[in-house]
């Protein structure tokens, strides 16, 4: 039996629909995101600082995939310009984009983590 609140169900209604209403499954996926997303975000930041744009693009792509089960709109969809900028080798743009979405990505990850017991 999961402890998902009505507010959380409303917030992640699309995600619940994707798992055909299976709350246990949603919590299981949230646990994976809670474990994997923070280090991935950290890795992305380091790669951008180090100018490893190709690698940063791949990490951003993986992060987008990981989070998109829970959210497909902002801030997750804002990872796409970051992926594109990395592929285009645009270092400054990549960094600026990352700074602009970092906070909201962190908030989303916390909200997903709150689904776990």
């Amino acid at each position, binding site marked *: 039996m999961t402890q998902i609140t009505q507010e959380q169900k409303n917030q992640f209604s699309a995600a619940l629909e994707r798992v055909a209403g299976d709350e246990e*499954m949603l919590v*299981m996926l949230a646990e*994976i995101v809670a474990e*994997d997303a923070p280090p991935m975000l950290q890795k992305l930041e380091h790669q951008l600082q180090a100018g490893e744009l190709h690698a940063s693009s*791949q990490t951003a792509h993986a992060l*987008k995939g990981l989070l*998109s*089960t829970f959210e497909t709109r902002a801030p997750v969809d804002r990872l796409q310009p970051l992926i594109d900028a990395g592929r285009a080798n645009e270092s400054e743009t990549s960094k600026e984009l990352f700074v602009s979405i970092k906070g909201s990505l962190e908030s989303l990850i916390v909200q997903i983590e709150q689904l776990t017991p």
Partner: protein
Amino acid sequence: MPTGVAQQASDSQPAIHSQPQSKWFKAMPSLLVIDDDRSILAFVEKSLAAIADVEIAANGADGLEKFRSGQFDAVLLDIQLPDQNGLAVYCELRELDRQIPIIFMTVDAASDTAIEAMQLGAFDYIAKPLSSEPLRDLVEKAIEQRQISSVPVAISADDESDDHSAELFIGRSPAMLDVFKAIGKVAKQDVPILIRGESGTGKELVARALYQYSHRSDEVFLAVNCAALPDNLLESELFGHEKGAFTGAESRRIGKFEQCNGGTLFLDEIGDMAPSVQAKVLRVLQEQRFERVGGNKELTTDVRIIAATNRPLEQMVIDGDYREDLLYRLNGVTIQLPPLRDRLTDVPSLIQFFLVQAKREFNKPDLEGLSPEAVKLLTNYRWPGNVRQLRAVIRRCVLDSVMPVITPDGLPVEVTRSQIDPRIGNEHPSSDPTPVPGAGLPALVRRLLENRSTNLYAEATEYMERYVITEVLKDTNGNQSQAAEILGITRGKLRDRITSFNIVLKSDVTVEA
């Protein structure tokens, strides 16, 4: 063994199956998922646990190693893997097994890689984030495709086959021997083939046999039911479409003719095709060229077409509903499947085969067979639903049986009644006695359930279809063009239904069903 058991379920192998099984008796199908995202692996494992054994791999190398050492029915593959490009993994998988259906998973469904993969013969792609139900539907289709193209169709005039994993084509009646000969004669010739026969006679099985005995047996085999899709979707399904070709065409889609390049395409219900699609199919048959819907670029393909129909194509040509040139292109080689009533001598062999199958599948080791009286009734029946109906009846009997021998009491009413009135089985199965049109559906379903019908879906659907068509024809004062448009079906299909349902359009435009 009790005396008087005429038809034995003679399979002596242990029949213990705790896992769900497909109709081909394979244990649970197996699926390999290759993705570095743990949440995707967990999602797929949990979503598909009921339909497949899921094996997971977190990178391309691991996936390929597992694929080499295992036996899989389908693969779900991420396009972007940490160690190599998903497309490279795809090519290696295809080298190892040309027939394995591979579904790509991609965050960007319009990506060039996804399109390239489809052009190379991938089964399909699915966009991330994944959703349980569409994922399950797609994987089920892929597994079915795998089984269709890889489960051997054994052609036998004998009752016995050592290969229990095969689907056996049974018959030693002259009509069936002619069919077997025709398959042997034309399978290796790279020509289009038209398979004709009533519903339930095994047209798909012939198509699969032709493919499996052909030079293209290592390549892709895809099946499309032309009657199952509205005309515009069928055109897109067959030929693909460009982005923006029509409302909802958000990205380029690769059609079956492109996807099946080098392979065999089975077009079932070829009579149910709009004229615009007929023209495009004709062009592929003549020149192996086509364009995607909404596209200008001419594409070439090398596809062998096997078509099937139970419709009177010649009459449809006369009525102006079917292209004569397409008919002549298609029926260069025709294989005609006889209805079961014309080869009743094959019924005992078929009973034997289906009995053994059902006994194993439903785990009924104590079932010994059918009584002579039951066999006689089954052999005298006219089988309007042909072999499909016979198979369903035997399966139902085996499922319901609690005694070691199935007697006439265990048979469906329509079969036992045929002994009293031998005309039964020829008549239209669901003539509606209800005075209020459409109101008899619940009663019909109840009656069919009570009679332990093995054809309930078809009969109930036919009842509903007849009601809908009648009502629309009334609404259009008998104007068939308008009715076809409202119904969203071709005029040919409407005319066919009017004939087969005995709908009478009277001069005062009231409609009698």
